[in-house]
């Protein structure tokens, strides 16, 4: 997990370094990227825990990657890439992954754990238009940029057009 997170942070950093001053970069991303030690500061959802307590249909939806109720999508805002030719963690053919993301913490009812998620956008084609999904557990307004899903996270791509969104497990929260 640590390795994966560092890899992600590194990739984000590399992507950003080409485009912005170090100062702007750090202020935009705040403490999130300064180290895994700060991860527990990320919000932990309540909504998804409530969901986990309910049986039956909701539990099934929470396990279906093409359902908006899928546990990994607790703060997603956009078209689910799984309905657009990708999956919950892959971009559709012919699009480009966003190097920068917003992040959140989602509760996985299957193992009872909270996970840190990276919500990447897939970029370079126009809006997919299928499976629109907007959930906001732990989402925060634009002044907390790294927790905000209202901005176009394709913004720094060569082609910043927005196509769809994925939700990638980075690791367990608070470990």
């Amino acid at each position, binding site marked *: 997990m640590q390795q994966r997170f560092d890899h992600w942070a590194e990739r984000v950093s590399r992507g*950003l370094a080409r*485009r*912005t*001053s170090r*100062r*702007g*970069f750090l*202020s*935009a*991303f*705040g403490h999130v990227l300064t180290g895994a030690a700060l991860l527990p500061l990320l919000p932990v*959802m*309540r*909504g998804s825990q*409530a969901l986990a307590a309910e049986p039956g249909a909701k539990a099934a939806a929470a396990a279906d990657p093409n359902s908006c109720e899928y546990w990994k999508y*607790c703060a997603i805002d956009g078209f689910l890439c799984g309905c657009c030719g990708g999956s919950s963690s892959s971009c559709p053919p012919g699009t480009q992954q966003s190097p*920068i993301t917003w992040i959140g913490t989602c509760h996985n009812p299957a193992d009872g754990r909270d996970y840190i998620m990276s919500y990447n956008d897939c970029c*370079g*084609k*126009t*809006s997919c*238009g299928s499976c*629109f999904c*907007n*959930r*906001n*557990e*732990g*989402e*925060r*307004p*634009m*002044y*907390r*940029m790294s927790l905000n899903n*209202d*901005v*176009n996270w394709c*913004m*720094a791509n060569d*082609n*910043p*057009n*927005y196509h769809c969104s994925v939700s990638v497990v980075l690791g367990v929260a608070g470990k």
Partner: protein
Amino acid sequence: MWRTTWGACLALLTACVAEAAAPPPLAAEHLTLAKLPPASPHWVWVFDESNNNETDMRLYLYDGDSHRQLGQIDTGFWPGVAFSADGKTTAVATTYFARGSHGARTDVLEFTDNSTLAITGEVILPSRHAQTIPLHNVAFSPDQRLVYITNLSPATSFSVVDVPKKSVVGEVDTDGCVLVIPSGPRRVTSLCETGRLLSVTLDDGGHEVSRKMSAPFFSVDKDPIFVQGALSDSGIVFLSFLGDVYGVDLSGAEPAFAPVWSTATAAERGKWRPGGGQVLALHRKTGRLYLQVHRGGDGSHKVTGTEVWAFDGATHRRFGRWPIDAKAHGGVQAIQVSQDDKPLLFLMTENSDLIVMDATTGRQLYVEPKLGQSSWYLLNP
């Protein structure tokens, strides 16, 4: 008797039909270009984010009295929008692609004459304008000479456009803070991750002269405020996730923060919450405040409203609690109020139905069904 009358009627009808067939043919028509009527305070600009076709967002101009769509301004991909203080000009900062959805990116500030809805000019911008909801990301200076455009790359700054010169004259780093709220002839205030306000003063050339950071005025962790504030005559009013009202006076040398008050009773607090995309509207002259609320918990801050609450500006008394037929129209996503003495309240629902209400009584006056694809913001000069 009946027979006679009926006979007479029939005769008359026949005569009428014969008469109707007689008039001269319709004259040829001339294809013309419609002119806008004079501007009305009951106009509202409906922002359609064209959710499934985001390169084709637009503003519809709608008249709350005649219930007519009066025209349209095209606004590209995730624009910021501002009106000049005199209401005569709309400025749109947006992104275009050389090949529709792809190809070279061009960011541009476009000016539209609101009396003709024709584009009158443009200024090419640095390719990093903020692609997000269209509120408080572009603003005119009070004298309309400068326009400020929020940048996000994701480093934060704002560009300064000199309107008469039609060029970008400066760019100011806002150190992670966002929004461009005009707070003086040459001052711009932004909202920061720390819960503070950053105010930057410029010279006439658009270059930074000084900056000042305020004390924190809300808790970003415990009860964050929405970025969608309502501009007042002296500053801006923000609303928190739990429904607390933060009035900020920006007219002095430093921001002055009014005592915080709650729109929810102790029993309602945390159970009824504001939510949606554009969460509050302010009638500036009376200070009356309007917001849409729903029953929901943490994480429901974008859930649309099932009721509108209306508050007196001075006493903070709730004088209206107006349920909305969310089953028929979808919940309330955006709220706006006209600024005249007989104000209309405009509600835009999740389904893009525009509800027009009397802002004083809450009486529903009209519903314009399906005005656009996903018309989730309502703008007013």
